[in-house]
């Protein structure tokens, strides 16, 4: 659905959806946007995913503005509904932090709140139909657009690395440099307590160090990759479902093609979308009862794309409902693990 006049193959369609808008240095020395995956890969490390950064900044600002609008007016009087909702989230995060973090820190609760809401917002972008914003971007001349920052491993690992830095800082702050390093080499086998001869100490300590450094590094890697993996997989399933739409419009919706020829014009899709929205709107306004609405929706969807399209719609809906749980859960898990890791960093083993 992107470039050129020819319809893309399934492989191209999927690949296009998984390609970030990359800005970096071309091999010839000029800076610019990469056209295609090969060019992006050729840019090496010093390139940037513009879409990931823009969307995550936008969503972070959305989070900040939303909470700021409440925080500015916050008072101890009767809260508005919106304020109550915001306070509910804050209370939830605060409780989670108090239960899991056994220390005192001014940073930890705001950190948890930011991570939870920000990641939730970024994940939420996954529920937008996969073609909407990329289609808008394509129309505006931007050839690649990945709107879910958490499906970019750079974003999730970036956050995980920031958490990792905090883990190191907290460890050193609470245990000192020697305490932190000591924990790395005297765990899990403590040669002193086991009464080993001095000769084998370096060996045991090296062994300990390898174990501990792996478990230490596993924290940010698992933190980032877990979120990335879940969101990437979810996004991929949405893309596959969207492919079934496309297949449906060519396969069963042959009737449409016989009317419009090879390419069904864009206004037809827009008209169909408007019709569906109008039906739902009338139902919400109370002008249509639920039964009529359902029949009308079925008829509209069938008319638009045939059975496959309808099947695609239902699958999309089903997966979206399931995905709501995943995006919330993943945001929560990221927050909780951050709290737990930082709590562990402050405690002596």
């Amino acid at each position, binding site marked *: 659905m992107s470039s050129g006049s020819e319809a893309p193959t399934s492989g191209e369609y999927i690949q296009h959806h998984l390609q970030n808008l990359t800005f970096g240095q071309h091999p010839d020395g000029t800076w610019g946007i990469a056209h295609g995956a090969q060019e992006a890969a050729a840019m090496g490390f010093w*390139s940037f995913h513009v879409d990931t950064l823009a969307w995550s900044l936008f969503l972070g600002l959305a*989070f900040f503005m939303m909470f700021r609008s409440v925080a500015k007016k916050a008072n101890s009087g009767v809260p508005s509904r919106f304020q109550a909702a915001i*306070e509910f989230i804050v209370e939830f995060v605060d409780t989670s932090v108090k239960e899991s973090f056994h220390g005192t820190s001014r940073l930890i609760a705001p950190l948890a709140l930011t991570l939870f809401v*920000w990641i939730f917002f970024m994940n939420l972008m996954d529920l937008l139909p996969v073609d909407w914003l990329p289609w808008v971007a394509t129309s505006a001349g931007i050839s690649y657009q990945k709107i879910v920052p958490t499906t970019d491993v750079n974003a999730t690992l970036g956050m995980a690395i*920031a958490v990792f830095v905090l883990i190191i800082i907290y460890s050193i702050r609470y245990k000192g440099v020697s305490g932190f390093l000591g924990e790395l080499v005297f765990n899990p086998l403590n040669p002193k307590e086991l009464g080993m001869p001095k000769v084998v100490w370096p060996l045991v300590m090296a062994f300990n160090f390898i174990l501990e450094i792996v478990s230490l590094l596993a924290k940010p890697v698992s933190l980032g990759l877990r979120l990335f993996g879940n969101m990437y997989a979810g996004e991929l399933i949405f893309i596959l479902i969207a492919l079934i739409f496309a297949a449906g419009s060519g396969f069963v919706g042959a009737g449409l093609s016989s009317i419009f020829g090879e390419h069904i014009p864009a206004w037809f899709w827009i008209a169909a979308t408007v019709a569906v929205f109008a039906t739902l709107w009338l139902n919400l306004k109370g002008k249509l009862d639920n039964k009529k609405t359902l029949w009308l929706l079925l008829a509209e969807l069938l008319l638009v794309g045939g059975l496959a399209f309808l099947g695609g719609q239902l699958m999309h809906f089903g997966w979206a409902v399931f995905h709501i749980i995943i995006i919330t859960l993943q945001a929560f898990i990221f927050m909780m693990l951050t709290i737990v890791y930082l709590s562990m960093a402050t405690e002596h083993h």
Partner: protein
Amino acid sequence: MNMNATLILQSIAMMVFVWFCMKFLWPPLLKAMDERRAKIADGLAASDRAEKALAEANQEVEQQIKEARDKAGEIVEQANQRHGQILDQAKDDAVDERQRQVAAGEAEITQSANQAREELRATVASLAVLGARQILEREVDEKTHRELLDKLIAEI
């Protein structure tokens, strides 16, 4: 999945947002929430106190109502007694009045009768004298028969 410098920028962005949150969001929100919690706690305590005060007031009111009821009973009792007294008094007064009036009536009747009798006696006496005079015009001299006549008058 190509790693690049997005990683670094994302870390920086996260730190900045966390700092924003720490500086501008968390303190005012938590302050407001804690204040409200304190307010609610105060309100609940005040309501407890008010409930207790209400219970006490109720008890007092009951006590007062009881006292008032007792007093009212007493007053009614007194009023009933007074009522009886007044009734008796009135009855006595009425009886006295009746007796007085009866006595007055009787006296008047007696007086009237006496008077009537006096008048009758005088009339009869004069009538008798008149009659006798007419009968005995010539033969009977008033002066000579005076004694007889007085005797007759007294007898009437």
